[in-house]
């Protein structure tokens, strides 16, 4: 029985190395304290009922030593842990996009080419995968132990995260945040595939409509296009080329148009209005499903094919690579 899960992502070896260091520190101090306690208890056992102990009860030097050494060690842990954390929380710019909807008690995955999966997730190895996740009900958590990767999916917002699989195989996908009756049934599999196998998988069972096309259809259905036309001068700002750009708001603030801002503009349009446009857009809160929102986002992203220069540096979530599939 192995004591470590498989290492199947670029995070895994970093996390395990960090774990190894902490195990070493834990083992050292547990053994140190355990040994000292046992040795002292035996060496200084009470030999006669009247025995009186030696009065040693303070040492400034010792107090400094056992304050400073642990302090140094935890600072190392902090710095090392933070560097791994930065790696895990910053998606690279060249990632492919996957869209995840969590609901009681299943995972729905949409690929940009229109593939949809339920409780299964096919990804290529050697290629960063960027997840844009939404929940339809309660908080869930997307957890793949073999990738040492976990991220809560909080309703009412997008949770954006990434990983890069390194080893072909089938790995557990768990929901890690208690989400109700069948929480332990909200599980699935991640299939990490060699790029060629992945391409073969993609070409089979095509759904006919890419995610962006599905979003475009919704864009029409919801009549978004009546205001957000392709050319300038319409009642609403044009959405062409807008993703990843900095936009001036009415209150003078500047906002980078990312998934979170697009989501807010659909569900709560008055929150941050673009400069020069009247507050006439109604809210779509409750009118569009989480799946539909993700499709709209994919569509709007597809209107901005090239990553905007400069925005990548300013935005906490870097810009989008063009959906690869025709």
């Amino acid at each position, binding site marked *: *029985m192995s*004591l470590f*899960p498989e290492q199947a992502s670029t995070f895994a070896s*970093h*996390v395990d190395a960090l774990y190894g260091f*902490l195990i070493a520190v*834990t083992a050292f101090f*547990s053994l140190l*304290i*355990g040994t*000292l*306690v046992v040795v*002292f*208890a035996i060496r*200084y*056992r*009470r030999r006669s*009922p009247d*025995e*009186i*102990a*030696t*009065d*040693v*009860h*303070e*040492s400034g030097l010792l*107090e400094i030593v056992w*304050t400073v050494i642990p302090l140094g060690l*935890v*600072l190392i*842990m*902090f710095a*090392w*842990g933070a560097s*791994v*954390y930065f790696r895990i929380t910053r998606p690279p710019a060249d990632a492919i996009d996957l869209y995840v909807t969590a609901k009681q008690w299943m995972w729905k995955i949409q690929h940009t080419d229109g593939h949809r999966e339920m409780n299964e997730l096919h990804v290529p190895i050697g290629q960063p995968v960027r997840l844009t996740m939404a929940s339809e009900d*309660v*908080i869930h*958590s997307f957890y793949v*132990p073999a990738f*040492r*990767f*976990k991220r*809560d999916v*909080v309703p*009412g*917002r997008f*949770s954006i995260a990434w990983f890069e699989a390194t080893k072909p195989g089938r790995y*557990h996908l768990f929901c*890690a*945040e208690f989400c*109700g*009756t069948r*929480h*332990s049934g909200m599980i699935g599999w991640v299939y990490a595939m060699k790029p060629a196998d992945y391409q073969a998988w993609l070409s089979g069972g095509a759904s006919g409509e890419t995610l962006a096309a599905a979003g475009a259809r919704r864009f029409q259905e919801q009549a978004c296009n009546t205001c957000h036309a392709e050319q300038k001068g319409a009642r609403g700002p044009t959405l062409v080329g807008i993703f990843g750009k900095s936009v001036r708001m009415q209150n003078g603030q500047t906002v980078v148009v990312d998934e979170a801002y697009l989501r807010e503009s659909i569900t*709560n349009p008055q929150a941050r209005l673009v400069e020069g446009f009247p507050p006439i857009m109604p809210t779509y*809160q*409750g009118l569009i499903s989480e799946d539909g929102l993700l499709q709209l986002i994919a569509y709007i992203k597809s209107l901005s094919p090239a990553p905007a220069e400069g925005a990548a540096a300013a935005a*906490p979530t870097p810009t989008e690579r063009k959906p690869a599939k025709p």
Partner: protein
Amino acid sequence: MSTPAATAPPEPRVHPVNYLNARYGVKSWLLTVDHKRIAILYLIGVTFFFAIGGLFAALIRLELLTPAGDVFQSETYNKIFTTHGVLMVFFFMIPAIPGVLGNFLLPLMIGAKDVAFPRLNLLSWYLFVIGGLIALWAVVHGGVDTGWTFYTPYSTVYSNGWVVVTAVGIFINGFSSILTGLNFLVTIHTMRAPGMNWMRMPLFCWGMYATAIIQILGTPVVAITLLLVAAERLFHLGIFDPAQGGDPVLFQHLFWFYSHPAVYIMILPAMAVISELVTGMARKPIFGYKFIAGSSVAIAVLSFLVWGHHMFVSGQSVYAGLVFSILSFMVAIPSAIKVFNWTTTLYKGSVSYQTPLLYALGFIGLFTFGGLTGLMLATLGLDIHVHDTYFIVAHFHYIMVGGTIMAYLGGLHYWWPKISGKLYPEYWSRVSAWVIFIGFNLTFFPQFLVGYLGMPRRYHAYPDEFQVLNVMSTAGASILGIGYVIPLVYFFWSMRYGKDAADNPWGATGLEWQTPSPPPTENFPVTPVVSGRPYDYTTAVEAGARG
């Protein structure tokens, strides 16, 4: 054999009137304002809730014996672990040491006749019992399935359980905690015997003082939070529910702003007990008195600044994560200082292997290990993997069960002669200490391993490859359960058949040992005067030990 009887032969002294036999009848107990009798009431109360919470733990381990969810239905299982958590955290861990040992000892240790507000003290107990019974009512009438953490929007919108009733029970119990903290704080400030300045105060009192600070400042926050949950559930206020513009993560911030300090409400009193046990059983002045006392206060203050480490994967900003990570590491330092000082106290001591020492050494080992695994959780990159897995479950059980319950039981043994006036059977008590230590490790150590392998917590069914470790854990839990039953039996037994205890069976310093066992209602026939440092074993011990 160095039994208490051997070190201090019980003289045929008779204490005709003490707090136990001063008055008789149920009414004399239920309406008592004597802090010692209220401590006994708490002992009965927390033992009751511990037994029920333990029973629910047994049901959890039974279900997890096999990978499939085959003993209970999922919803039932979810209610079982929720009930286990709610009862153990709010109705056992938080009240246990302050309610039982704190109430009994604090006035005795500072040479006072009672706490500052005796009637308020009784009210605290009633609030605790009423809160607990309300929570139990919810369990009996269908239960609640949110987990003891009540995360929104599940608890406010989706759960079908008795969320509001349970929250009301916890809310009421919260006032018990607040009032106890207030009472202890005022007692320590105003009722110390002549000559007992702050630096002469036993470390147990310092621990209670630090605990009281958290109880008073933290508990109102969880009370407000639970009120907001109830308001959203009943009146759809839209505070946490994103469908109404609320923020589910706001709940986590509010909840952990109390509930992380609450962890220290559970462990600081345990540390306070250990400080007494180590020095008493080694018969040596405690090493680094000022550092142990100061570290208690440092922990109390820092405990309010670390709540965000529960949200490293919830989407809080990376920079907030950094701040909470480093602050969480900082709280480890005063804890480490305590462990080193306890260990060094044994050095060149006169160490007796009686039961309280066994518990104290068990505590030091398990708390050290539990604390060090806590560092892993404060480490940002590592927490992402182990968050919400059995690794967390193992970690906090090392602190709560390996730490707090070990200290509570050790303290109960150490002061049992004073509380009951009787000696417990030394042989069986050592047996139970070993059984508990072994059973505990077998139960919870495998959970670290299965957690790192990726088994999420609160799973009713789990993949087959996790079974071996779960079987080990269940086997350990069976041993642990037996370990807890043994003391229950012999404590009862000793009340009737135990040998009479001397006033100071351990030959310990401390004012509580200078009054009869059991103490008279007014504690001290003459108000004591304190003239030296605490734990002065090397100069002044003879009078107390063998007097």
